[in-house]
């Protein structure tokens, strides 16, 4: 909105910032509000720093570290697997004309429409047959089924933007088709890999329905299920819940901050196109 005067633009940006950040801030403040002031008619807008003990407790009394590690394994596994599976199909959709391409593209999209709730029963049976229930691998495999279509589309957009001449030169040098994708195309679309990995990573980090059904042992619990577990039948310890919600959100935020600058450029590189 370059047409607007700077002060208006800046105040709009500030307002947006406030809206975007407030719920995070509120989670944090609530986790650090003394019990006696939780039910005050005027909410407490600033954290009470003497209450930070809840965070120490979260790590000492609750296996939060294990949950985070499990979520991390699932998220990282989902990311790597999604990209590995999607790379060649994305290249194929971008570079080749072949019979059935339209149908293949469309049916790829169709898988995005399946709700987790519908797949959880058949997938439970499937993983049972392969003796893979109660493993984080099962979660990685299940989550990847949901991220692959988006990742394929994003990578395809990026490959569209890679000039074919570069590949032709490599062809002449005797590089194989697979070698071209691996050695020439992959590095060129690196920023887009960052964009795709954010999508896959968040999906794996956040997923809840599979995580609570396919895995039962507590040592393999992910943070989403661990957090939801505190919403008890009889009582919910609000400080614990809010502090764990904060702890659970922080790694995702940090990860995002690291890759954020590649995300926009990655999507720009050919990016998400129709």
């Amino acid at each position, binding site marked *: 909105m370059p047409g607007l005067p700077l002060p208006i633009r800046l105040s709009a940006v500030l307002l947006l910032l406030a809206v975007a950040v407030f719920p995070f801030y509120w989670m944090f403040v609530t986790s650090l509000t003394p019990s006696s002031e939780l039910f005050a008619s005027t909410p407490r807008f600033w954290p009470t720093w003497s209450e930070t003990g809840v965070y120490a407790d979260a790590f000492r009394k609750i296996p939060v570290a294990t949950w985070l590690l499990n979520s991390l394994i699932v998220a990282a596994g989902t990311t790597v697997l999604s990209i590995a599976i999607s790379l060649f199909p994305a290249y194929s959709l971008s570079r080749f004309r072949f019979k059935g391409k339209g149908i293949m593209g469309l049916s790829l999209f169709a898988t995005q429409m399946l709700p987790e709730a519908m797949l959880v029963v058949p997938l439970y049976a499937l993983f049972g047959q392969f003796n893979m229930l109660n493993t984080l691998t099962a979660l990685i495999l299940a989550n990847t089924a949901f991220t692959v279509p988006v990742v394929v589309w994003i990578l395809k957009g990026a490959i569209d933007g890679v000039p074919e001449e570069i590949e032709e030169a490599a062809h002449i040098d005797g590089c194989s088709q697979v070698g071209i994708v691996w050695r020439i195309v992959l590095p060129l679309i690196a920023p887009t890999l960052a964009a795709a990995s954010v999508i896959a990573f968040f999906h794996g980090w956040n997923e809840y329905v599979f995580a609570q059904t396919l895995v039962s*042992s507590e040592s393999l619990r992910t943070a989403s299920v661990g957090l939801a577990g*505190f919403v008890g039948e009889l009582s919910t310890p609000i400080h614990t819940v809010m502090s764990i919600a904060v702890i659970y959100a922080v790694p995702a935020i940090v990860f995002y901050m690291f890759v954020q600058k590649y995300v926009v450029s990655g999507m720009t590189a050919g990016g998400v196109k129709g």
Partner: protein
Amino acid sequence: MLHTTRRMALAGVMALAALPCFAGSALAQGKTTISFAGVTFSEAGRGDRLREWVDKFNKSQDKIEVTTLGLPFATFANTMFTQMGGGGGPDLIRFDTIDFYAAVPAGRILPFDDHIKDSDFKFSAPNDYLKVNGKRYGVAFEISNYVMMYNPALLKDGKVPTTFDELLAVTKAATGNGNYGYAYRATMAERNGFWQDLCNYVFGFGGRWSDGKTLTLNAPKVIEGVTAYKRMYDSGAIPKGADAATYRRMFWESKVAIEIDNGGVAGIFNQQAPNLAWNAAPSPFPTRAQGLILAPLTVNANTKNKDAAFTFVKWALQPDNQKALQDILGASSVATDVPRSADDLAKKPWLKVYDEQTPNAVPQLVGGFEVRTPELQQIIIEQVLKVLQGGMDPKKAMDEAQDLAVAKMSK
């Protein structure tokens, strides 16, 4: 630069090829490990002590180890059923009654008869609800009654209501200055809790959801109960929309004067707010009937360690362990009759009120339609919400509920 990126990407993809199986079956050496799932294990105030209780079993055994699984309450039964239907699930499960009645006809939990003889234990009366066609499929892990809990300091002149009209007046008087007179649930997000609270009103006014054979959702006494629920909703004395976790906390922070709740909650108050001087009295309804929480301990039919599972059940039923369990559970009781100690009764005057409620406790099920209670529950709750929020006439709403339910049950 380019090289580094490329190599990193390659390394990532290569790592995938060797994607390790993160398996979780850390088998303890030479021990049979079985799992025990229940929402109670993740509950603040009771969960840790219940885990300690199970650990006592583990210390007493050299061949069997029980691991506890605390799961989110909102999706507990759904998760259990998905796992059991798929041939898996934990070995031992603490169910709610409503889910127990779904699991038995599906053949998903094992009968106890070959392992646990009724004659060997002194089971209390509610345990009979856990027999289906004469066969026992579970023993009570927790039996809990509903009575009225109150904060004397918040009641004007300390007056404790004994009738529903008094309850309305007393709670109204106690409301103000950031305090609320009464609290209960009336939201879809807490479907199960809403149902429990509604059952108390309907049962208290003498209504029942069925006569055991036919549905009676629009019987006059049921409508009276629903009408009372609505009067309370409109009284201005309740924190509308507050969930149970919040208003129970408000209660122990002395912001809510009265609520009708189960003995498990009493245990939590006692644990979380030991200095709070609260007390209990029978619920102020025309009849003494109130809901009953009956959470059975069951054995999953998919278990591969049947003997180990029943060994645990037997251990749990030993008098000492029953007593320890009852102490943890608060004002609830366990499978066998465990007398309260004189010391306990003196320190916790409300225990007696809870215990005396037992003969009037009614399971929160639709008699004769136990397996289909979730569907009936949904219909009834939706119709009652129309009364509460849409201003629909209670009779009309319950007539509709009856028609909808009868049509649904005929399918």
